[in-house]
Every structure is written in structure tokens, then in C-alpha cells.
């Protein structure tokens, strides 16, 4: 391979490796006002009325699974494939239903987080303690007030911070200290208080530092050696504040300011004989976002969102054989976003909504060769929904139009794309709480700035990558003698067309991005959840199983025809069980992944063995005067299973973690 290609690829890999996680905020308004007949129990993790497969992790589940980072709990969701480079600082992206990470949108309090440079959101950058709940919807959402940009996504992972529930108290203060293996220390403090009759203020700060120098076994053929991960230190600081204002009995305004900064080493690939990890990464991300929700009348509701965000990234390799002796890349991405949605209830059952989102995003970099693109995006959406006691049907049409400008060289053409989604949910057997559901979605992702403009690889003539998913499933949710249970099974077929991939161009020395691939996936997601809702001893259990057969359907004469998509196990499963007692609470969790491949060609050299990780924890609440103290001890990867999820990026072995939380 010529060096140009090789180094461009390094660069693109590097960029892929540190996509920006931008936080965003706003309260979860999933109370589905338009169907008042149905009440949704807050601690259910499956939403039986949803037309699409929907999973939710509440605070209990996150407690039981030891969620340090939001990506940790997503591993327990069936249908989600988490690609994890290991450790706190290792990139963590989520692909849903074989569609690829860039088809999974991440929303922070209802507003989409975008990364126009790489298209990937690192879910490891969200701390478990900043999320009250995490929800994943794989397909069209029932929410009619969903902003247009989110409605156009194949799958949405929502990180919801929640509005502080102060009840009668004037204020709440909390502090938390965590200490864990490999010198991991985190401190967090938060407070929430009422400011006047109708305002609630929430403030939160979190600091995390880890050395992350966990041991791993480096195998090389017949031999293996014990190594320690180097340059995997991470330091992060997050400060956010939110103001929840009830402007009137039917109007709420939430405004959030967010600041995140980090410095980390980039965890190195195991490289036989050369383990000099030295690359550094700095991130700074700040934003202000606001959501106004108002019920103008019984029939008309409106929601407006606004956001401004700035993200700064610096990547440094201090030892490179170029003239400067280093690579020091700095990028600044700015974004302005405005959104409005109107919902009109035509009859008790029938409602219609329409929304428009406008976004302006620009990328600037320090390289002389940067295209410095700016993208104007307008997403619009129109939806119809019919919801009776036993029947829900949704239909939606999404449209996107973009315009692009660059300072250097030619900009990409405008995109103008229409995509529909539809869903059904039928309470087929009310006595058993049995629903049948089906959905269809046709979505797409736009080429990223890297896809279009990155040095010699980017190509301006890329089309959007299109995804379509057809899904059908069954969900039973019921409660009997204080025990709630739910069972679900969803089968789906998904197709990704015009996949954007780096391929050799018209000659082999110049690689380029191209719309070339096609992936077809058959899958099954199934799970069972049982929770005891009464009594002083409350056990709970959650089991899930995922089958995914993701086939490369790019070229019937190609060598990878029908081969399984990389990093996609055919079989994977998870189980969490916990018990709450007056004395102590305990949990045990298990993750299993069957064999998979780390490359599109399923040769034996790319086979990744199956792995199983087990963890457990004990915690207890103590009431000390007016304080509530929670002490928790966790063991992660109890059996010290040594595995790699991403080839050559070892995962940590056994870890201990202690947490003390104080609430007033």
C-alpha cells in the first residue's frame, strides 16, 4: 500500500476514533398526552403501546448493571450492538439492528446530538449519573411532538436527565464519590431547588479521573505475555445547570447550559513489538439549549427547541516523522439549531402533527488543506396518528433538504430526500396484556464532513446512505399478585443500501469514499422481565436474547457475499437480576456474545471468540438523621475474563468499585 493511502487511512481511523460527544438536554415529555386512556408505568422497561421495539433503562436497572457510562447499560438492550475499544476512554458506539452506528441517533433530553464530522457519537462520554433514564426506540416513535430531525432516524437512544422531583422539599443536595480499580476516581455533586413558585433549578457537576492502566494478556501465536495498558488515562469535567419553568399551567420552559471538557490518552492498539501509545485527545463542548412546550388548547400543542453548541477537538501525536515532528489537528464544530412542532388533535382518536427543524453546522480546522464546510439542514416532518383504546397507528413523512458551502474547493451538492415511516400496535388480548406491533421505516444518514471532504479520501458526490427496517413483534405486559412481568419478541428485516465506505478508487493508490455496500439483516430481539412490586423483599429479573444475521449483499460475485457484518455476533444474550431487601440490595449481571468477525470477510483469521462477562454488586441505603447515605460495592468482570471486543483493543479484566452517595 502506498504511504499516502496508509496515512490517510490512519488519519481517518483516528478521526473515527474520537468523534465528539456533545451533550444536550431537555426534559422527557414522553407522557403521551394525546392518548390519556393509557397510563405507562414508569419502571417498565418495555413500552407495550409502542409501535416499535422500545427499551428503557431506569435508575434501578442502571444501579443493578453498574452503569458508569451510558454505554454500559446499552449492552443489556437486545438489538443494540455496542462496539467498545475498552476502558473508560475507549470509544463506544452503538449500532441498532445491523444498520451501523451512524444510523443510531442520540438525543440528550429530547434534542438530537450531531457530529457532522464523523457521524459517530461516543456513548462512553455520558456518565451513568447524569441520566435518569436511557431509552432506545428501534423504529418510529409514538411521540407526535418529536422534532423532525429525530423523527427521521432509524433508531434513537435518548439520554434523559429528568426533572428533579422535589415534592415538598425546598431543595435537594447530593454528593457522590466513586473509587475503583486502575486509579479511577470520580466525584459528583448536585443540587436542585425551587426558585419561586414555578421555577426549579438543577445544578450538577462531575469530575472523573482514571489512569486506566489495566492489565491484559497479549497473545501472539503460541505465546502470550502480561502487559498493562498505557496512555489510557482520562480526565473529565462536566458542569450543567437547568432551569425548569412552568410559565403557566399548560406551558413549560426548560433551559439547560452544559459544559464538558476532557483530556485523555488514546488507548493503543496492541501492536506486536511496538507498544508506544502516545496520542492525546482534548475535547471541549459547551451548549445552551431550550425547550418550550405549550398546550394552546385542548386540541393544539406546540413544542419549540433551540440550541447553540460549540465543540473543540484537539488530536496530538507528538512523534511523527514529518517536518514538524508531530501531528497536531484542531477542529472546531459549531452548531445552531431551531425546531418547532405542532400537534393538532382532530378527534379524540385522530391527531396530526407537523414540524420543521433548521440547523446550521460548520467545521473549521487548523490544517491548510481543510475544506471548512458549512451545512444548512432543514428537516420537516408530518405525521398522522390514530390511537384508540386497543389500536394505535402512525404514519409519518420526513423530508430533508441541505445546502453546503466550503471555503476551499467545491462543496457537495444539495441533498433533497424524502423518507416515510409507519407503525401499528394492537392490544390483541386485553386480559393478557398482549399487544401485536409492526413498523416500517425508511431512513437515511447524510454523508459526514469526513466522508465528503477528508483530504484525499472524501468525495463530494456521495449520496445519503439509506436504511429500511420492517419489524413485527409481540409484547405481553401484565401484573399479577404484585409481580409485573413483560415478555417481548420482535423479528425484523433491515436493509442498508448505498453504504458509504472507503474503497480503492479508480486506481489502487487513491482510496475514496463511495456508495457501494449493501447489508441485509434478519434479526430477532426477545426478552423477559419480571419485577416484584410489593413487599419488603423485591426480586427482579431481566433476560434478553438477540439473534442477528447481517449479510453483505453488495456484490453477488464478491468474496464477502453473504458474509456476516463485522462486530455483529449472530447470538448474544444478557441477564440482570437484583433483589431489594430491607438489609441489603444485591445484583448479578451477565453479558454473553457469541462468536463474531472483526472483518467483512469471514475468514478464520478474522474470527473473534465468544465471551461472557459476569458482574455483581451489593448496596444499602442508610438513613442518618436527615441524610440518606448509600454505600455500594461492585465487582465488574468477576471471573476476570480476558477478551477483546474490538480486535487488538483489550477489555479490562476484574475490577472493583466502591460508591458512596449522600443525599439531603
Amino acid at each position: 500500500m502506498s504511504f499516502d493511502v496508509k496515512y490517510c487511512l490512519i488519519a481517518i481511523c483516528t478521526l473515527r476514533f474520537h468523534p465528539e460527544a456533545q451533550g444536550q438536554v431537555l426534559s422527557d415529555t414522553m407522557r403521551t398526552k394525546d392518548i390519556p386512556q393509557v397510563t405507562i408505568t414508569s419502571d417498565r422497561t418495555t413500552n407495550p403501546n409502542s409501535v416499535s421495539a422500545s427499551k428503557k433503562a431506569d435508575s434501578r436497572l442502571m444501579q443493578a448493571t453498574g452503569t458508569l457510562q451510558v454505554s454500559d447499560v446499552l449492552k443489556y438492550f437486545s438489538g443494540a450492538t455496542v462496539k467498545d475499544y475498552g476502558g473508560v476512554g475507549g470509544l463506544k458506539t452503538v449500532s441498532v439492528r445491523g444498520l451501523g452506528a451512524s444510523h443510531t441517533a442520540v438525543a440528550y433530553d429530547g434534542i438530537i446530538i450531531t457530529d457532522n464530522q464523523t457521524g459517530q457519537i461516543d456513548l462512553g462520554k455520558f456518565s451513568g449519573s447524569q441520566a435518569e433514564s436511557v431509552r432506545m426506540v428501534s423504529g418510529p416513535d409514538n411521540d407526535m411532538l418529536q422534532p423532525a430531525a429525530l423523527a427521521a432516524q432509524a433508531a434513537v437512544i435518548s439520554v434523559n436527565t429528568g426533572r428533579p422531583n422535589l415534592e415538598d422539599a425546598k431543595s435537594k443536595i447530593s454528593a457522590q464519590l466513586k473509587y475503583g480499580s486502575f486509579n479511577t476516581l470520580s466525584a459528583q455533586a448536585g443540587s436542585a431547588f425551587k426558585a419561586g413558585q414555578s421555577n426549579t433549578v438543577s445544578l450538577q457537576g462531575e469530575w472523573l479521573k482514571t489512569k486506566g492502566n489495566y492489565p491484559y494478556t497479549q497473545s501472539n501465536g503460541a505465546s502470550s505475555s502480561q502487559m498493562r495498558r498505557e496512555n489510557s488515562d482520562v480526565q473529565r469535567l462536566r458542569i450543567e445547570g437547568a432551569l425548569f419553568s412552568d410559565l403557566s399551567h399548560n406551558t413549560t420552559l426548560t433551559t439547560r447550559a452544559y459544559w464538558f471538557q476532557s483530556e485523555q490518552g488514546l488507548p493503543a492498539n496492541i501492536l506486536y513489538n511496538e507498544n508506544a501509545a502516545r496520542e492525546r485527545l482534548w475535547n471541549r463542548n459547551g451548549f445552551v439549549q431550550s425547550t418550550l412546550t405549550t398546550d394552546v388548547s385542548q386540541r393544539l400543542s406546540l413544542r419549540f427547541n433551540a440550541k447553540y453548541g460549540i465543540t473543540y477537538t484537539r488530536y496530538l501525536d507528538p512523534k511523527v516523522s514529518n517536518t514538524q515532528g508531530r501531528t497536531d489537528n484542531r477542529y472546531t464544530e459549531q452548531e445552531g439549531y431551531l425546531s418547532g412542532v405542532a400537534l393538532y388533535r382532530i378527534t379524540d382518536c385522530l391527531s396530526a402533527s407537523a414540524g420543521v427543524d433548521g440547523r446550521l453546522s460548520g467545521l473549521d480546522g487548523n490544517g491548510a488543506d481543510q475544506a471548512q464546510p458549512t451545512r444548512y439542514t432543514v428537516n420537516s416532518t408530518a405525521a398522522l396518528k390514530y390511537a384508540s383504546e386497543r389500536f394505535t397507528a402512525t404514519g409519518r413523512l420526513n423530508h430533508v433538504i441541505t445546502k453546503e458551502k466550503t471555503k476551499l474547493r467545491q462543496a457537495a451538492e444539495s441533498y433533497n430526500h424524502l423518507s416515510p415511516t409507519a407503525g401499528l400496535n394492537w392490544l390483541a388480548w386485553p386480559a393478557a396484556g398482549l399487544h401485536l406491533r409492526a413498523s416500517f421505516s425508511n431512513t437515511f444518514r447524510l454523508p459526514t464532513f469526513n466522508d465528503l471532504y477528508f483530504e484525499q479520501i472524501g468525495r463530494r458526490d456521495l449520496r445519503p446512505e439509506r436504511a429500511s427496517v420492517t419489524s413485527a413483534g409481540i409484547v405481553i405486559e401484565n401484573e399479577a399478585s404484585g409481580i409485573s412481568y413483560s415478555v417481548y419478541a420482535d423479528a425484523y428485516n433491515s436493509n442498508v443500501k448505498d453504504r458509504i465506505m472507503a474503497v480503492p478508487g479508480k486506481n489502487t493508490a487513491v482510496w475514496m469514499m463511495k456508495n457501494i455496500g449493501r447489508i441485509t439483516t434478519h434479526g430477532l430481539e426477545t426478552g423477559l422481565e419480571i419485577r416484584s412490586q410489593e413487599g419488603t423483599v423485591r426480586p427482579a429479573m431481566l433476560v434478553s436474547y438477540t439473534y442477528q444475521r447481517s449479510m453483505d449483499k453488495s456484490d453477488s460475485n464478491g468474496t464477502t457475499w453473504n458474509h456476516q457484518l463485522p462486530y455483529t455476533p449472530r447470538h448474544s444474550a444478557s441477564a440482570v437480576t437484583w433483589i431489594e431487601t430491607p438489609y441489603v440490595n444485591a445484583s448479578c449481571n451477565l453479558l454473553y456474545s457469541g462468536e463474531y468477525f472483526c472483518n467483512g470477510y469471514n475468514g478464520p483469521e478474522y474470527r473473534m471468540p465468544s465471551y461472557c462477562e459476569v458482574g455483581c454488586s451489593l448496596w444499602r441505603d442508610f438513613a442518618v438523621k436527615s441524610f440518606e447515605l448509600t454505600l455500594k460495592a461492585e465487582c465488574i468482570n468477576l471471573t476476570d475474563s480476558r477478551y477483546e471486543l474490538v480486535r487488538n483493543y483489550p477489555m479490562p479484566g476484574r475490577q472493583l468499585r466502591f460508591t458512596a452517595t449522600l443525599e439531603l
Partner: protein
Amino acid sequence: MKRTLNKILPLLLITLACDPEPVLLEQSQVIADAGHSGVYVLSEGLFNQNNSTLSWIDFTTGKADSWTSATGYSFDVFEKVNGRRIGDTANDMILYGSRLYIVVSESSTIEILDASTCTSRKQITLSSNGRASQPRYLTAHNGFVYVCCFDGTVTRIDTLTMTADATISVGRNPDGICCTNGKLYVSNSGGLDTQNPDNTVSVIDINTFTEVKRITVRSNPGAIYADGNSVYVVSRGIFDYGTMNYDSRLHRIDTQTDEVVATYDIPILKMDIADGKAWFYGYGAGGTIQVLDLATGRILDSDFITDGTRIECPYTIKVEPTTHKVYVCDALDYVTPGSLLCFSPDGHLLYRVQGIGINPNTVGFCDENVNFSTYQGPSEIIGDIDRVFEYMPAPGQFVNLLPKYEEGDNAESMASKCLIALQSGYTITLGGFGGYITAGFNTTVVNGQGPDFRIDGNAHSGSAEPGVVWVSADVNGNGLPDDQWYEIWGSEQKEGRATPGYSITYGKPAADDGDSEWTGSDSRTGSILHNSFHSQPYYPQWYQGNSVSFTATLLPDNVSYQDGQYIMSAFGFGYVDNMPNSLENSSFDIDWAVKSDGTPANLSGIDFIKIQNGVIGCNTITGELSTEVTAIYNLNSKSQ
């Protein structure tokens, strides 16, 4: 409800059951070429995946050597033999002497392997100031291998001591190296500065190992090839965002004047030269192979492949110099293991070996008889000797280096160093004519049918430094080599061309870098010349006397001068370090042992062996002829 379930469940099952299974690649039959035993194919793997591999395609068995690794079947003979993997991004390989040299760019190592067994003899790590040097390409000349590294350096490796003994600076990010007319040519790409690449070719004088000139060429020079008095270098130019491509040209450099004398507007990616023609594939032409007349820059054949065979992504090209069969590696989509395609000289596909390795980038013809044994565990003792009784080299350029003399060493400690070296497969030298080593086998070598023992050296074609073998049986049973010695008669003694009992005396030079004068029993005189490549004293440092004498069988002079090169021809049979190592070339039959009167010794077995340099030869380029020994095997022991 039940009815609905009954409808849905079969639907689900059908969905799950109709998944087609993936199909992996298949293999095809290989055809032999030009007397080679086969070809090595080096594959770089994927960047940062540590999956470089070395495959062997055997012309005798007609297929690629495969085995079952932990992950499944594998063509990687390197891992099979050495129990570990090559590393990350093995970028280039040459076969030189009886050894295979591989540069592993991202791991920043050089692997030195025995070409006949694939055993790694040495792994050299290259770094400077704590930064990996990233070796890229290599070439060899007169016992040295030269490696250009991306950190702007060229490193010299002594093939006998297997150490990097000198490093010099050249331009930025060298991306090609070749050798001709006593000079090295290195293309300085500067490719890590995409906006401001380098545009020079460094000329290095081999004898002084210093950069003597930088030739200015177009920007971003890469692949570089030597052909007699010309050097050809591909200059890629600066990436053009208008055409989204490079504007690549081929320069011809005259090595007499070291000037660019011609520039051909031909966008070559990689080529191989035979008989003044270059077979190449280029930028902008997909998988087309073309043939170029190097003297005129005229395209002789714009589409070499005549049978419609399609190559997705040519990744290397190699032309067999005599048969002109063309070997092309196809990297396919860069992630699937690629193929080796062999074409007849008229462009017909002869065969295709699929799945040979990921991104196969180098093909090397091998003439050795290969035999790969599966790795059995670490610290394996090579060979079947367990004692070295005496080591007395005559003065020579590797004496005090192979093995290394250190302050305080004496004859005994030098003998133990020789034992360790021979048991580890490292080379020892016998120095000039008469120098010898005496060793004992761990068990008696029984005189069986055919060859009974084997001695490996470092001979390669045109570089024979023959040593004479003596054997002895431990008749008195005292474990010491104090019994009757018998000479193994090779072709020269048999034909009466050898001079038995020739005596020689070497004087100790006054200075450490002085020449060692010698006088023979027939009053011939000469000297072992001190050269610039090896700076240590050549007279055995642990030996006290001011002169040292040897008596040995003198073989005929085997040195001749042809086409600007000294050729050291091999004798028919029966000598150490005479022909490239193989069972056939390096083995001896105890039946060849004779009494002093030349009649067969009729030994039933032997316990001791003595190897003695049998040639007096010296030239100004490679220095004196010195027999080198790397391993001694008992072919009739149970382990064989």
C-alpha cells in the same frame, strides 16, 4: 389470539431459517517455474491489525503450505514455525543468501529467517529517540542488507552478525531503496507532509556508507528500481484535488552521472524489470498490466493479459527473470485475503492461488529445499552437538565477532560461546584457511543408509566458502576427541585436485586494524586485508602467540571475477558452507570418510567432528573466504 400466533411464529422461523451461509475461498493447483522450489508471498495484513503473514507456495506439492492455527486453517508459515506472528504491516521482503529478510513497518522490526525452514534467527528492532523507525524497504549487497526507514534514515545490517551496525540520515520519509554500481539509491518521499513532500533521491556510496549526492526529482518519489547502469524512480507528484488523483511520472537516472536523464509520462504504481523491459500496473488503469521498454519509454504492450482475466487490485508484480512468467498479487478489496496469479509470458492465466494473505505485497522465488516444522515450544536447541572441544579460527574479518570476543575470554570460553551459538542457530566463523572447530555429538551418529549428518553454513549462489570435514569415533570411550581422525573426501580430494597437509602461518598484525600477513608451506605469501565493514581486530584476540600456524587440506581456488563481481563457485559435493543449506546440499555420508591412504575408513559410527576452512581466497570486495557454520545435525538420531 392463538390463531394469530400460529400465523406469526412460522413466519419468524422462515425468516431465521433462510439465511444463506457465507462461502470462503477455494484453492487451485500450482505449476512449477524455472527450477525454483517455490515462492514466498508476504502479506502485510491490515493496518494495526497485527496480521501480516508469510505464505509458502510449493512447486513440488503444487499448493500453498497450510496448517491449523488456533483460529482455523492458516497459510502463515511464519507463525507455524515460530509460534508467533510477524507483526504489523510487513512491508517488504528479500531472499538473500540462505536467509529471508522481512521489514515489518509498524512493528518497526526486521525479521531474519532461514529460507529453508522459516525459523526466525533474529528479530532486530529499529528505533531512534524512543520513536519507531518504521522500516519500509530493503535491498542487499555483499553481505549487508540496507533498510530505508520512514524516520529519514538508512540502516545497514551485517548478515553474518545479524546486527544493525550503522545508520545514516537521508531525506524525509524514504519510501524505496535499490542498489547498483556500488551505490544505494533512496527515494525521499516526504509523504508525511502532504502539502510539502520531499523531491530528492539520495545517493549513498556503499563502501563508505555515506550520502554522496541528492538528485532532485519531481515531488513525492516512491518505488525505485535498479537495472544495470540505470535507476528508475516513480515520482507521484502532489495530489490534485481537481482530478482527485496523482500525476505520476517515471524518471530514469543514469548511475554514471547520477542525473535524471529521462522522464516518461507513464503513471506507474509498481513494476518489475527483466531484460530491459518493465511489467507494470499504474495509476488510473485499474487492474491492467502493461509492458514498457525502459530504454525508450515506449509501451510495448498496453494490455498484457490476453485471456480476459480480471485483476481487482494489483498489489505487487514479479517477473521470473528467465522464463518471464509474470506473478501478480491481487489484493481484491484490501480486507479479503488476496490471490496470487501466475501468467504465462504471453499473458494467459496459468493458475490462481486464492486467499493467500491479506494485502499480499511481495513475491520471492526460493531455490532452497524447504521443510517447515511446527513450533514445539520455546528455547529449542538446534542441532545435535553438545560439546565444542576446540575453536581456533585463522585470522578473518568475522573473527572476534562470530562469536564475539570479550575482555577476559580464553580458548575455553570461546569454545563455549561457539556451542551456544551453534545450538541457537547463530553463525560462527572459522576465519581464513586452516581455521577449525572440533565438536562432539550428543549421541553416536550411526552410519546408516545415505546421508548421516548435516552441517549448515551461510553459502548462497556465487558465495561458497568451502570447509573440509574430519570425523572420529570415540573408540577408547573416554569422551574426548583423542582417537583416530578420518577425512571426509569431497569432490576435490576424490578427483585429486586437493593438496593435503598444506601448512600456513599467519602473523599477528602490529595494529588492531592491520592486515594479517601469511606464508604457506610452498612459500606463497599473502595477507588477510582489514576492511571498512568490520573494524575489530581480525587476529584471534584470546590467542597469545605472535603467529599462528595451521595444517589443512587445501582445495583449489574457487574465486573468479565476472561482470564486475567476484564469484565464489561451489565444489561438487562434500564440503561445509559450499551450497545453500538443504538436506541435499549440506549433508554428509560417513561412508565418504577415508584413511590417510585414501581407502574407505568403513566406520560404523562417529562421535566427533572437525571442520576446517579449505580455501585460500581473498578479494578486495568481500575480503577473505572464511567457512561459516550455523548448525550441525545428526540425521540418524531418533528425533529426526
